[in-house]
């Protein structure tokens, strides 16, 4: 039996006086592509960031790549975990260019007192090539569009050569084309690099194409876990988002009540 890459048991996370996660357990095997969906405030990002130690547990335990996540090893663990968050507004005048941002992915692995060398530059060039950003390598990062900045963020993760890939709504605030491009890129990288990927998204249409498995979250609990084709249907969405079934049907006409997902691209 293969050991799980990520194992979270009875995780409890508390922010000041509110409980963000209430006894959540999750096991992710090597190579899985897991989508995490749910309404705002469900605890999706909290669950995701347990993996890279951004979120500390008030209860329960988490193991990542065979190690317990704690205050002592989280810097070391993060070197093996790529993390892409939502596009942030970057000051267009910030004195950092695209190549430098991607090189930052190497910094953790290089460690203190070591400067990037020729091999690091090769890794960065390859990452830029893979996300189609080579032609903008010397452009100040703040002067890129949202979709392009997200590609750079993905290239930074690639340069990190991680084993786990965490994506926190990477397509939020992007237009339809940019969203589709990023999803296609993420899937391609997942397959090419044999990564284990956790992907928080609101993009329900994308899930069946990209994910092997979907985790549904609501009010700090996991309320569903399974194959997207089986799980994403009108009933579960109605339960997940507290909407009456007819409203879900009206808003999502391409999902049939049988639970089948009608793939618009055929």
């Amino acid at each position, binding site marked *: 039996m293969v050991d799980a890459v990520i194992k979270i048991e009875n995780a409890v996370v508390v922010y000041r006086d509110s409980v963000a996660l209430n006894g959540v357990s999750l096991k992710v095997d090597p190579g899985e592509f897991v989508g995490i969906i749910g309404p705002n405030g469900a605890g999706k990002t909290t669950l995701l960031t347990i993996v*890279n130690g951004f979120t500390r547990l008030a209860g329960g335990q988490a193991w990542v790549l065979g190690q317990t996540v704690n205050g002592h090893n989280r*810097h070391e663990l993060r070197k093996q975990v790529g993390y892409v968050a939502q596009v942030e507004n970057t000051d*267009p005048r910030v*004195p950092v260019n695209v190549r430098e941002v991607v090189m*930052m992915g*190497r910094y*953790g692995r290089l460690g*203190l*007192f070591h400067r990037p060398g020729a091999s690091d530059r090769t890794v960065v060039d390859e990452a830029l090539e893979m996300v189609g950003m080579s032609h903008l390598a010397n452009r100040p990062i703040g002067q890129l*569009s949202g979709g392009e900045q997200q590609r750079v963020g993905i290239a930074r993760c690639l340069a990190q050569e991680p084993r786990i890939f965490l994506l926190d709504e990477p397509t939020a605030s992007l237009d339809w084309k940019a969203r589709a491009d990023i999803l296609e890129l993420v899937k391609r990288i997942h397959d090419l690099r044999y990564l284990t990927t956790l992907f928080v998204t609101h993009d329900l249409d994308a899930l069946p194409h990209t994910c092997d498995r979907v985790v549904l979250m609501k009010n700090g609990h996991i309320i569903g876990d399974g194959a997207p084709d089986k799980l994403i249907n009108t009933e579960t969405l109605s339960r997940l988002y507290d909407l009456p079934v007819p409203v879900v049907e009206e808003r999502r006409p391409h999902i049939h009540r049988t639970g089948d997902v009608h793939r618009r691209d055929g």
Partner: protein
Amino acid sequence: MDFSIFGYQFMQNAILAAFLAGIVCSAIGVFVVLLHMPFIGVAMSHAAFAGALLGLWLDFNPLLGALIFSLAAASVIGPLADRGALSPETSLGVVFSLMLGLAFLFIGIIPSTRSAALDLLWGSILTVSRGDIVLLAIVAVVVIGMVVIFFKEIQATIFSRSVAMAVGLPATVILYAVLFLTGVTVTVTLRSIGGLLIFSLILNPAAAAYQLTYSMKIMFLLAAVFGVVSGWVGLIVSYLFDLPSGATIVLTSSVIFLLAVLFSPKRRVKQWENKAINGETAR
């Protein structure tokens, strides 16, 4: 024009002090500008000022008091900003007003030291001692050394703390180190530049450099050049027109900033601020 004044020891000390303070303050300024925390300088300098006054009052080395107070301010500002309970600006504002209150309290309690207090507020670069210069040189070497040795960590942290943390860098330690370096810098420049004027020498050269380059390395270099030029030109103007040197140094740095804004290639990027988050970048 008579430049024999430059043969005097006090003037040579002042030139050296302006050189070192210009370099070290502008390096700190790059952090302050890129972290979008311009009030760090003003909060720290007033903390150092209050600490120095406490030293004068209780009869111990004012520099030690300044160092303790500015490091205490750094250790309060960091966690306050970090936990997100308050915005960084708010926590800096609270620390600033507390320190200002303490400083005025100490001035009120110890009227005999009022002129010494004013010296600390305005600084007097023309009376710096060799000891002050040695101290400044040590701090300059430490600050520049840290920037050179930990450039990649500093670059990532001031670009985005979450990115730095995500790739496995100790971003919080780096941020605190920057805050502590700011405290030390403010302390050692208190006597020469003064608690009130130090803020300008930290902010203006770095803000000017920010207008002119898209490279962080060049920004550090340009800021250092502007800092030193501000000090030296300010000293010359002060001598030529018999004006207070602190004021002429700060005004020179302000003029450099205005010129940088005027000739900034980044004025064009205004359009980017309103850019839609979607869409392709113009090739």
